[in-house]
């Protein structure tokens, strides 16, 4: 079998804020169509890693998207190459309507660039999340936490991404909403989208993902399949469970 080029490949990536280093020589891969989860304790640097990929923080080392180096690009250039970002606190535009939030997610004309990902539209957003359709003209700020999370997903998909970065989508949501978000992730995975998922709830993360990385103090301390991680109690004790 010919070796496939990974969709996303990090090679010894370091990042931090100002003089503080948070990530140390992180290497990981996401293959086309694959869902990979990144777990670890609070403060391990998971969000920082996702931000480094999205171009939101200064980083060193190599980040390749389908072989193309994107590690030096600015955030909007990374986005235009098909990397969509669902941030940890959703970051929806509260004063704008639901629909305006979605429109913002869809780059037009020149902005679209070389994007050839997951085709997506406002109509599909409303089909996936009927609740958003019902609230289309409402200011996004009045939505519930779960609805705002749906909006953050739909807005990211509007960019027709090749890779979806998702940071703690279930944080602070009701059990029912957590389940709905998990189902959404499965739907997107089964539709062939590549996903890098940061998720605190280990069971959900390992159910959805095909592979898992564990981040501890800014370094990768485990890489393997979900079943390996499930059976490896020492890793879970040392780096995940609190």
């Amino acid at each position: 079998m010919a070796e496939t080029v990974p969709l996303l490949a990090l090679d010894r990536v370091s990042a931090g804020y100002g003089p503080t280093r948070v990530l140390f020589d992180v290497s990981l891969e996401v293959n086309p169509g694959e869902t990979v989860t990144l777990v670890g304790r609070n403060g391990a640097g998971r969000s920082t890693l996702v931000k480094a990929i999205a171009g939101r923080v200064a980083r060193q080392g190599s980040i390749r998207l389908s072989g193309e180096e994107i590690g030096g690009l600015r955030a909007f250039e990374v986005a235009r190459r098909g990397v969509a970002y669902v941030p940890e606190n959703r970051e929806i535009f509260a004063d704008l309507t639901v629909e305006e939030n979605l429109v913002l997610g869809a780059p037009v004309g020149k902005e679209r660039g070389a994007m050839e990902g997951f085709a997506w539209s406002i109509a599909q957003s409303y089909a996936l999340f009927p609740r958003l359709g019902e609230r289309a003209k409402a200011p996004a700020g009045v939505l519930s936490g779960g609805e705002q999370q749906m909006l953050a997903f739909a807005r990211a998909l509007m960019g027709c991404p090749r890779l979806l970065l998702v940071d703690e989508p279930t944080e602070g949501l009701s059990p029912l909403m957590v389940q709905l978000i998990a189902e959404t992730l499965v739907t997107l995975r089964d539709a062939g989208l590549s996903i890098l998922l940061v998720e605190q709830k280990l069971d959900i993360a390992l159910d959805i993902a095909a592979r898992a990385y564990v981040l501890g103090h800014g370094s990768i301390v485990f890489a393997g399949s979900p079943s390996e991680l499930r059976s490896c109690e020492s890793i879970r004790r040392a780096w995940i469970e609190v």
Partner: protein
Amino acid sequence: MDFIFPAALNAISYGLLLFMLAAGLTLVFSLMGVMNFAHASLYMLGAYFAYSIARQAGFWVGLVAAPLLVAGLGMLIERHVLRHLHARGHIPELLFTFGLVLVIEEIVKLVWGLGAVDYRVPPELRGTLFEAFGTRFPMHKGFVILVALASLGAIWWLIARTRTGLVVRAALANPAMVESLGHDVGRIFTLVFGLGAGLAGIAGAVGGAVLVTEPAMAAHLGTIIFVIVVVGGLGSIKGAFIASLLIGGLESVLIAIDVRLSDLLMPLKGLSSGLDAVLALKASQLAPILPYLLMVAVLVFRPRGLFGEREV
């Protein structure tokens, strides 16, 4: 009370001119977090550019071309200087715009001389628009209102109704997220700075012709605009609008009534010679300092300004 009607029209005319400046300043401040001290200097450049172009090609060409030049200059300044300073925090940006005020003033004096230049509205705008209550309302004031409403309307439409405006509104709230959706926020900053500069340029091309075009005009209007954004509340367009009309109104009304304070405050007369000196002032002589009194009053009772969200 027949002074009220013309005074109100004067107030609207002057207030809208002020708002053209205050709106641009507020927009730039909201987006970039930097108070552009040189904003009124761009107003002055608009007037001088329009004057020079008008001498070659006529008033109407100047009215269109000067604001475009000022907008272009603003975009160059943002793109090549402010953007680089932005990474180092606000102080270098403030110092730069402050220095720009001095540089532009000196350049204006070098190129156009120390005195006022003869920049006036063309003959077709010199007549009387209408007469009411025994006062004539001059055409050029109506013209100021028209130009202000048209340009402010155009900006409003751009921001509220277009997709680019949507990106601007989102960037006001969270530029980093806008960038993560694939929008070049740097370009949006340049565009907004250009819009603000262009608006100042229009105000200059019009205001220079109906008021005065001289090297001191930037300093004079700059302080008034500063008072307006502080009184209205930093970053609030609504506040800037109301404060513009308020200050435009105050000055117009004071000039129109033009009574001695002593007539209003008769009972206080003779209490002290210092007070008598103040009472002998005419209201119109008070007009120039009134904005500052208003600013102090507002800051005492409401430190964040009328509609502001943060304290100054």
